[in-house]
């Protein structure tokens, strides 16, 4: 299979359309399994009691918020270097979902912090750098929507995505570099996870659900961006006529 075949919007558009429902169903199944494990199988935590169950969304959301930003930086670099249209469209399609996961990580962290630390918020390195990530997402979105010309918007957005990516390792390693109230990593590649197996599996399933959700949503979003930008091409005109006549445009 030639991967470059799918790098053109004309061939990627229908492929993305077929992949969206697949990943959407996958996300729902993984989330159902993860929540079942998280609430009905994983035991009560010896120290924290039941409130630790926030972990099943907090950690996957935090991972996803960092990972999506890195993927945006990757597509931005590809777009700047090779001047590929699809790369910038992918960056744009990912940004709102990254911002969403970042917000969820901050929100659930605050609600977890109150009963365990006694405060919703503290200006420690982990929380502050995560808040900065939220502002980077908002900054990216505000910038690309403020610039009318899509090519200029793409390039400006790509710079923010690349420069802001420096913040991601700062978030990740903040718990090692500084003395933070936030605990260290519960799961890492170098040592055994410091939690019960069923807790770990619940969390990993929820992380996979977040992955599948992100793929489904960003592919659906990139289809809209593609159609808008390629509206003068034959394939897009045919698709607009087809989808429009099918009632999508009049509904």
């Amino acid at each position, binding site marked *: 299979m030639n991967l470059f075949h799918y790098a053109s919007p004309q061939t990627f558009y229908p492929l993305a359309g077929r992949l969206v429902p697949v990943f959407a169903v996958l996300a729902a199944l993984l989330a159902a399994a993860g929540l079942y494990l998280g*609430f*009905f199988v994983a035991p009560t935590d010896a120290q924290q*009691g039941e409130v630790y169950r*926030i972990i099943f969304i907090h950690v996957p959301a935090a991972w996803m918020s960092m990972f999506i930003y890195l993927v945006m930086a990757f597509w931005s670099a590809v777009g700047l270097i090779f001047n590929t249209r699809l790369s910038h469209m992918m960056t744009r399609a990912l940004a*709102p979902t990254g911002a969403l996961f970042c917000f*969820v990580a901050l929100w659930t962290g605050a*609600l977890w912090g109150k009963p365990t630390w006694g405060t919703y918020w503290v200006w420690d390195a982990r929380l502050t750098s995560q808040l900065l990530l939220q502002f980077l997402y908002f900054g990216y979105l505000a910038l690309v929507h403020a610039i009318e010309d899509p090519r200029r918007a793409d390039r400006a957005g790509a710079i923010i995505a690349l420069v802001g990516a420096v913040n991601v390792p700062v978030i990740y390693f903040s718990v090692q570099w500084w003395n933070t109230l936030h605990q260290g990593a519960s799961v890492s590649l170098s040592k055994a996870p410091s939690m019960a197996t069923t807790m770990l599996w619940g969390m990993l399933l929820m992380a996979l659900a977040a992955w599948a959700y992100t793929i489904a949503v960003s592919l659906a*979003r990139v289809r809209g961006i593609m159609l808008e930008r390629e509206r003068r091409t034959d394939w897009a005109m045919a698709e607009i006529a087809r989808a429009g006549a099918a009632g*999508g445009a009049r509904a």
Partner: protein
Amino acid sequence: MNWDSLAGFLAMGGRGAFVWGSYGVTLLCVLLELWLLKQGRRQGLRALWRRQQIDIDEAAAMPASQDNP
């Protein structure tokens, strides 16, 4: 099984507000994103379709334009 009753499940050991506050807002965020995506798709398609109809109408109204530039 961790819970002996629905009330016990909802109470989450007295931390129900924090646990369900987390899950509830997350669910709302996801639903909001899905709704916005659906709305955006529909409105975007409608705008593109209208623009295309206008182009087609204009082209039909000026049949001689290609012969007499």
